């Protein structure tokens, strides 16, 4: 069964290269990703928030719910470390 991981990796490589044929070119100004919602953000961000940094406006206002989730992810990681490595858990670990 040694060949299973290698085969998986090879298949993934082929699949990913195949996907390349459908993607927009590098640096393409007209690519859909660079026009549809992106244009709206660039055109409106400064006027909606008086904030020049478009990325800040995006993560903290247009998509602030994502950033809330992101903060919760960080909090979860802290809680997980607390849960796993709390003091007083050592004795029970040895049992």
């Amino acid at each position, binding site marked *: 069964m040694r060949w299973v991981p290698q085969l998986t990796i090879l298949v993934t490589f082929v699949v990913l290269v195949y996907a390349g044929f459908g993607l927009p070119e590098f640096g393409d100004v007209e690519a859909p990703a660079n026009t549809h919602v992106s244009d709206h953000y660039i055109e409106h961000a400064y006027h909606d928030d008086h904030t020049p940094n478009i990325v800040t406006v995006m993560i903290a206002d247009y998509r602030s719910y994502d950033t809330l989730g992101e903060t919760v992810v960080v909090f979860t990681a802290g809680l997980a470390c607390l849960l796993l490595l709390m*003091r007083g858990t050592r004795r029970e670990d040895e049992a």
Partner: protein
Amino acid sequence: MIRRQENVILDVITRIMVPFIQIFAFYVIFHGHYSPGGGFQGGALLAGSVFLQRVVMGRERSLSGFHVKLGVPFGVIGILVYGGTGLVAQVFGGNYLQYEWLPFGLDPVWARNTGILLVEIGVAFAVMGILISIYDNLSAREGEGEKR
């Protein structure tokens, strides 16, 4: 176990560096509106300044800078600031996180500007507290983790 040795040069340089790192962190947080930066990056820098103290001065002596017990509460405060900003906006009539309803008496655009600042501060708090908490829990010797 490696015995920790006092090193005057490291100690002094840490004492000098930490305030500068922290001031730069605040700059990154509050200047996030105008240049790359923001809550997460600033919070990580703040946490980094505490890591430096922890590494150089040792665990016990650096507790006066930031106590181990403060990590999770800082995270809680951060999320409450973030979620609370959204909730206040919702209570005053908007949708969740709709900053123009924040009761500051500002016009919508500037209210949103303020809202962004508030949530960035929340993120910075949470990231700082939690990163320090993770570091403390991971670096604690066995049985030395956070006591609750």
